[in-house]
């Protein structure tokens, strides 16, 4: 249970260190905190419309089950490549919604077992990359960027690499 201990010390430790250095540098702690917190409120209101819009779009797409149905169609092709079809819906959702893919990971854990091949691939995939489309729409949306140029390509490339690497690593090491 060591790792959980590390995890739970992390956050308080960061806060502690910041306050300690602040105190040492004679920063007026509370005033500064409130000043920053006000920035946080402004930021939040800027972000909320992007968040709502994105959740709306992503959920309508997921709930229509278009994505899962597409994979049923191509399952023979993926079987040939030795890629288990069961992992594909999660691989596709991973760049779109972190919460949805987290839920799908738990679902795979429950169906196939935490220590199964699929379970491990799912865990690696969830841990080693972040939600590309969410980050793009949030970050670029908040400052009003319309033309994102090659950002999506580069971001999705990282997701594809992570997916293939997760499959490879788990088959090699377990």
């Amino acid at each position, binding site marked *: 249970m060591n790792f959980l201990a590390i995890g739970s010390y992390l956050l308080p430790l960061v806060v502690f260190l910041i306050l300690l250095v*602040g105190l040492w540098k004679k920063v007026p702690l509370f005033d500064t905190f409130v000043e*920053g917190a006000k920035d946080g409120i402004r930021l939040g209101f800027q*972000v*909320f419309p992007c968040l709502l819009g994105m959740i709306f*779009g992503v959920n309508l797409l997921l709930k229509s089950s278009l994505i899962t149905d597409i994979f049923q169609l191509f399952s023979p092709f993926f079987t040939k490549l030795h890629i288990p079809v069961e992992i594909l819906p999660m691989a596709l959702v991973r760049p779109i919604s972190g919460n949805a893919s987290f839920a799908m990971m738990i679902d795979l854990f429950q169906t196939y077992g935490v220590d199964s091949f699929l379970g491990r691939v799912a865990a690696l995939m969830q841990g080693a990359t972040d939600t590309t489309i969410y*980050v793009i*729409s949030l970050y670029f949306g908040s400052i009003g960027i319309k033309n994102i140029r*090659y950002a999506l390509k580069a971001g999705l490339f*990282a997701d594809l*690499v992570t997916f293939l690497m997760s499959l490879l690593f788990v088959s090699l090491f377990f």
Partner: protein
Amino acid sequence: MVNVIWGCFLLLGLVYGFLTGKVEVMNQEILSCGSRSLELFLSLFPMMILWSGIMKIAEKAGILSFLARRMRPLFSILFPELEADDPALEYIASNLTINLLGIHNASTPFGLKAMQCLQEKNPKKDTATKSMITFLVLNTSGVTLIASDILAVRSSMGASVPTDLLFLTIVATLLNTFLALLYNAFLARRSS
């Protein structure tokens, strides 16, 4: 681009929903999506306020600029077009540090701040700059050293050794970040 993606998501979802007779599901989604995103927002928003406050202290105490100085050699490779003392780099440094620790919700305010700083120097306000995309790639490739939420779930669901993926996750995240940065540099060169 975001406009096109968003539009496609909605249109594809709606059309496919109609075709497969899921009108009820669509209805429910449209009616409940607002309150669900508000729920998510309400869990994020206080975190943002709290961390913006704490990080303001870190900023005033010089911790952020210290981190940015430490990461300067790395930054001069990743963001060649930014000055070494650009304020955006301080926010990028703190965003990356917090991401490394796996506290994603807390890192978002810095990412947004960094983007705002980059936007101030952007000559074409509606078009992403090279630095913005590089920073975005660093974020989406998810440089995380301890994915504590996954560890927690794995151990609670009875994994024999929950930590057995820890090392592989780190290797995978570093490798995919490195490859994504290479690809990003290639795309940047081709587009300019």
